[in-house]
């Protein structure tokens, strides 16, 4: 309707987005709105952690043992106020969560990005070239998908660490973690992209590009890629939730982020030690953030899947 009334030359990309079905369906879905708001809140807080955190939990000068184990919403012996309480070293739980979710989100986003690039490239190559490429790649995908992702991440993490010299193992842990989580999740992308590429490759625009003498690389990544991207968005969103859980699980097990660095997983690992002594807040708040984050990302992913599915309209 808008396009008929307003002059067509004014359709900028932001205009096009605001007129799109996706944006309309987003505004009409309370679940998507709440989930997105929660994600914006958590991601925003994590990004702004150095600015909004009451203190830097890794700066020992701001940590005082006399503040230790203060319950939430109360004032410590030193007269400092702790909204979410403090842990055994006197670190503010709110600040550790802000910094911890920063690490967790960084690992999850990087890992999902890595999985996306690997899966997209291999999937598009398998779908477009077919033949030996296709059967080799899809055989690996089949084998990989029959193993649970968390187990692959664990094994890759262990194997990669085995290859690193002992001195660099802790420093490289975050990157090894990103590598292992990414490597455990690429197969989903590859399978979906391959399926979509098989369909796209038959279409006229690809033949037309061929006849105009466009190079294969250009056809693959300039023409086919934009047309297979929407199912990839859904998998990337759901994959992000999986990656957050994997990071938390591995770090919780003590085989992810090193214990000296805060992430949601290591915070829960530390918090569990105080389960029996009654300091519930050290465990409860990081766990709550983890649950809210994964739940929101999952709900948003589900909504996106339904919104992009033409059959449901």
């Amino acid at each position, binding site marked *: 309707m808008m396009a008929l009334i307003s002059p067509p030359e004014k359709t900028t990309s932001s205009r096009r987005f605001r007129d799109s079905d996706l944006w309309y369906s987003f505004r009409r879905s309370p679940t998507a709105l709440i989930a997105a708001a929660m994600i914006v809140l958590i991601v925003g807080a994590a990004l702004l952690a150095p600015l909004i955190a009451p203190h830097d939990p890794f700066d020992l000068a701001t940590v005082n043992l006399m503040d230790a184990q203060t319950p939430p919403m109360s004032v410590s012996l030193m007269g400092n106020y702790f909204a979410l309480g403090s842990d055994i070293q006197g670190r503010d739980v709110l600040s550790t969560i802000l910094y911890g979710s920063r690490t967790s989100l960084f690992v999850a986003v990087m890992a999902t990005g890595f999985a996306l690039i690997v899966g997209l490239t291999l999937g598009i190559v398998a779908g477009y070239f077919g033949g030996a490429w296709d059967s080799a790649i899809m055989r690996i995908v089949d*084998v990989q998908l*029959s*193993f*649970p992702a*968390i*187990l692959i991440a*664990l*094994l890759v*993490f*262990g*194997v990669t*660490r*085995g*290859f690193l010299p*002992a001195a660099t*193992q802790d420093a490289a842990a975050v990157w090894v973690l990103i590598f292992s989580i990414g490597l455990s999740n690429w197969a989903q992308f590859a399978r979906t992209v391959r399926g979509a590429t098989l369909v796209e490759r038959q279409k006229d625009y690809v033949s037309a590009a061929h006849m105009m003498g466009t190079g294969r690389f250009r056809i693959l990544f300039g023409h086919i890629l934009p047309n297979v991207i929407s199912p990839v968005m859904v998998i990337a969103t759901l994959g992000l939730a999986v990656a957050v*859980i994997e990071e*938390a*699980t591995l770090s*919780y*097990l*003590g*085989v992810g982020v090193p214990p000296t660095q805060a992430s949601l997983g290591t915070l*829960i690992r530390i918090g*569990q030690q105080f*389960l*029996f002594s009654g300091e*519930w807040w050290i*465990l409860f708040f990081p*766990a709550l953030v*983890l*649950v809210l984050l*994964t*739940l929101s990302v*999952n709900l948003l992913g589900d909504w996106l899947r339904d919104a992009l599915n033409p059959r449901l309209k």
Partner: protein
Amino acid sequence: MLIFVLRRLIQSVFVMLAVSLLAFVLFQFAGDPIEAMVGQDATMADRAALRDRLGLDDPVVFQFARFIGNAVQGEFGLSYRLQQPVLGLIMQRLPATVELAVTSTIIALVLGTALGVLTALKNRSWITGIIMAVSLVGISLPTFLIGIGLIYVFAVELHWLPSFGRGQVVELGGWSTGFLTSSGLRSLILPSFTLALFQTALLMRLIRAEMLEVLRQDYIRFARARGLSERVINFRHALKNTLVPVITVAGLMLGSIIAFSVVTESVFQWPGVGSLFIASVQAVDVPVMSVYLMFIALLFVTINFVVDILYFIVDPRLRADSQKRA
């Protein structure tokens, strides 16, 4: 049928070879095993002698062949961390993991099927709403948080159940079992339910969806028209047809239960293979890691193989298809 089985078998052997190659490469190039095995004051001559005795100077292809040969005979070398034969370490911890995994699988199968059928038959009831909501929580929460939550409720607050370990175990000819003592059984409850919850929720949703689909079919309407009782229709006609896809899921379920037992064992300090593996990853104990890698691969390859064969036996359409091709 035979060709199908053979083809699948060759494929499985191929996967196993690929995994053992990976395990071998890991073994071979991750750090110097000599450095890890000798003390600091060993002379160069001692080191060379040990290198020679372990055959580390032979061509790599020979070493790989020997690695496979040894692996088939159950020779996997010594753990760097504990200085004990790896196979012995794994065998010693296997009973704990197997008992946990089997209990969880039974819980998930029984509970998942029962709840799935219940929620499908009582589709519009309020109890279905509650069960579906709980199952959503079971699917979206990480396993270790569920474990911690159960520990908090049943061990910390209520003091009903122990929060860690296996309790008292009884040795039965090299197999230590916790099934025979009350403390062993009590210790089993929390970890096995933690491990089973995700699978139960998944299975329940699958069975519910399948069952609702089957109940809409014409042969169910026809059975009703024949005047059969609801019980016969629901359980003999509908449930039987629902269970075909469940075979695949049950196979995958056993696999993921064993995979996730790594997490659950750590939460409950369960002395199984999974917690051994975690400790090995932390200590970069390469021999244990590579054996665990092969062990898990063997397990999954076997499960997938059995599931494929079962499918072939259960689903007549697959058999007809392969005969046409042959």
